[in-house]
C-alpha cells in the first residue's frame, strides 16, 4: 500500500513556530543576562563566525596598509620627533625613580608597610581595537588579541591617557572590552587632590561617568582628577580615570550629583595596552614586604 505524496506541509503553523522560537530566545536572553550556565555557547558560535569576520575586516586591513605605506614617507621626521619625546620622558622617568627611592626610604623611616609594587610586576600586551560592535545599549569594543595571546578575563585595558575598560569576554583570537561608560561598569577611584576614595560608575551614555552616593558636603571640585585607587585588585593604582565635570549639590537631596568625563578615548587611537596583574605575582609581592617590615 503506497501513501500518497503530501501536497501540503504539515507541522506547526507560523504563529506556533514563532511562539516556540520566541520562548527559546527569551530563555537564552535570561540565561545570558542572569545565570550564565553555558558560556561555551558563545565560544562555539564565535568560532563559527570567525572566518566571516575576517573577511569583513579585509577592506579596513587594506586601508591600513595603504595608510602605513603613505605614512612611511615622513618616517624620518616622526623618528626625530619620537626621539625628542623619548628623551623628555626619560628625564621624567629618572626623576620618578629617584622619587620612588626617596619614598621607600621615608616609608621605612616611618615604619610603614611598603606599598605593593604592582607596577613593576605588570605584564603588558599591546592590542589593537578591531571594531566597535553595533549595540547602542552596551558600551564595548573588540580587541584583536585573545586567550591565545595570554589575555585573561578581568584584565585592565588602558591607552596613553588613562583607563579604557576591562576585559569581560574572552575568545581564542579576540576579546571584548567593557568600557568605563557601560552602565554595569564601576572603578574604585581616588581624588588626587585630597585622597578621597569613591567608586565611579558608567551611565550608559557616551563620555559620561557618575560618582554615586557622595554626600552633599563632600570636598570635591570641578576639574578634580580621579585616578584608580588600586582597591579591588583589578586596576593598578594611580592610573587616570576621569576629570570631574559638573557638581550639582542639591541641599534637599541626600547625595550630590557628580558627573565626570573619562580621560581615555576609544575613538582617538587604535592601539591599547592590556595590563595583567597576575594573581600569583601580586601574592608574592604582598608577602615580601610583610617579611621585611617584620625584620625592620
Amino acid at each position, binding site marked *: 500500500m503506497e501513501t500518497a505524496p503530501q501536497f501540503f*506541509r504539515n507541522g506547526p503553523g*507560523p*504563529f506556533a*513556530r*514563532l511562539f516556540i*522560537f*520566541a520562548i*527559546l*530566545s*527569551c*530563555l*537564552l*536572553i535570561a*540565561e*545570558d*543576562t542572569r545565570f550564565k550556565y553555558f558560556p561555551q*555557547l*558563545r565560544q562555539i*558560535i*564565535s568560532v*563559527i*563566525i570567525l572566518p*566571516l*569576520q575576517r*573577511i*569583513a*575586516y579585509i*577592506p*579596513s586591513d587594506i586601508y591600513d596598509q595603504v595608510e602605513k605605506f603613505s605614512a612611511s614617507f615622513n618616517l624620518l621626521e616622526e623618528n626625530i620627533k619620537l626621539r625628542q619625546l623619548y628623551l623628555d620622558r626619560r628625564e621624567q622617568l629618572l626623576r620618578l625613580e629617584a622619587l620612588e627611592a626617596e619614598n621607600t626610604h621615608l616609608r621605612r623611616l616611618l615604619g610603614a608597610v611598603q606599598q605593593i609594587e604592582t607596577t613593576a610586576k605588570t605584564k603588558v600586551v599591546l592590542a589593537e581595537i*578591531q*571594531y*566597535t*560592535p*553595533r*549595540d*547602542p*545599549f*552596551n558600551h*564595548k569594543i*573588540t580587541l584583536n588579541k585573545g586567550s591565545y595571546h595570554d589575555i585573561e578575563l578581568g584584565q585592565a585595558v588602558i591607552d596613553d591617557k588613562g583607563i579604557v575598560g576591562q576585559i569581560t*569576554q574572552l575568545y581564542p583570537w579576540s576579546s*571584548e572590552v567593557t568600557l568605563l561608560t557601560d*552602565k554595569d561598569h564601576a572603578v574604585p577611584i581616588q581624588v588626587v587632590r585630597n585622597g578621597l576614595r569613591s567608586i565611579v560608575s558608567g*551611565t*550608559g*551614555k557616551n563620555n559620561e561617568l557618575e560618582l554615586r552616593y557622595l554626600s552633599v558636603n563632600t570636598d570635591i571640585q570641578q576639574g578634580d582628577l580621579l585616578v584608580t585607587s588600586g582597591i579591588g585588585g583589578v586596576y593598578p593604582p594611580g592610573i587616570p580615570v576621569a576629570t570631574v565635570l559638573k557638581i550639582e549639590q542639591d541641599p534637599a537631596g541626600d547625595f550630590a550629583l557628580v558627573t565626570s568625563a573619562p580621560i581615555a578615548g576609544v*575613538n582617538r587611537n587604535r592601539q591599547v595596552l592590556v595590563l595583567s596583574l597576575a594573581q600569583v605575582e601580586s601574592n608574592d609581592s604582598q608577602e615580601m614586604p610583610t617579611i621585611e617590615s617584620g625584620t625592620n
Partner: protein
Amino acid sequence: MILKRCQQLNPERIKENNSVKENYLGQDMYVPASSSFIATSLVIALILNFLPLQGDLLIARPDFVAFAIAYWNINHPHKLGMSVAFGMGLMVDVGNAGILGQHALAYCVIFYLTQIFGRRLRLFSLLKQAPQIGFFLLIMQIVFALVALSSGSTLPGWKYFHATIAGALLWAPASFVIALLLKPKPDSSSL
C-alpha cells in the same frame, strides 16, 4: 441587494484595484532561487553586518541579515525555515557583543511577519513595499529596545531609528538588483 453592492464599488476604487492587478501581472515571473544562491546571500549579509564601521555610520547601517530574511521570505516563501532565522540571529548576537538571543528573537518576529504578509506585499510595486518593510524593521528595533530595557539599559537617542529608515530606503534598489541576478540568461542555442 445587488444595487447596494454596485453603489459600494465606487469607480476610483475599481481603478485602483485594476492598477494593482496590472502591476502584479506586469511583474516578471520569479525564477526559483537555488538553495546555494540563498545561502550565499545570507553569508554575504552576515559579512556586511560584521563590517567594522564607526560612529554615526555604524548606527545608521541597516541590518542586512534581517533584510535578506525578509526578502527571501516574501519573494520565495518556504525556502527558509524559522530555525535559520534563529541561528542567524545567534551569530549576529555574538558578532555584535550584545545579549545572546535578542537578534534571534527579532529575526524570528521578522520571519513571522513576512510569512504572514508576504503574499500581500508582493501585490505592490517595490517602491510601495519599502515603507511596509520599514514598518517591519521598526518592530525589530522595538524588540531590541524592549530586551535592552528589560536588562536595565536606558534608551539611546532618536539616532537609533536611522537604521530603520536606511533599511527601508535600501529595499527597492536591493530587491531590483537581486531580481536582476536571478533572471535566467537567454539561451543562445535555442530558437
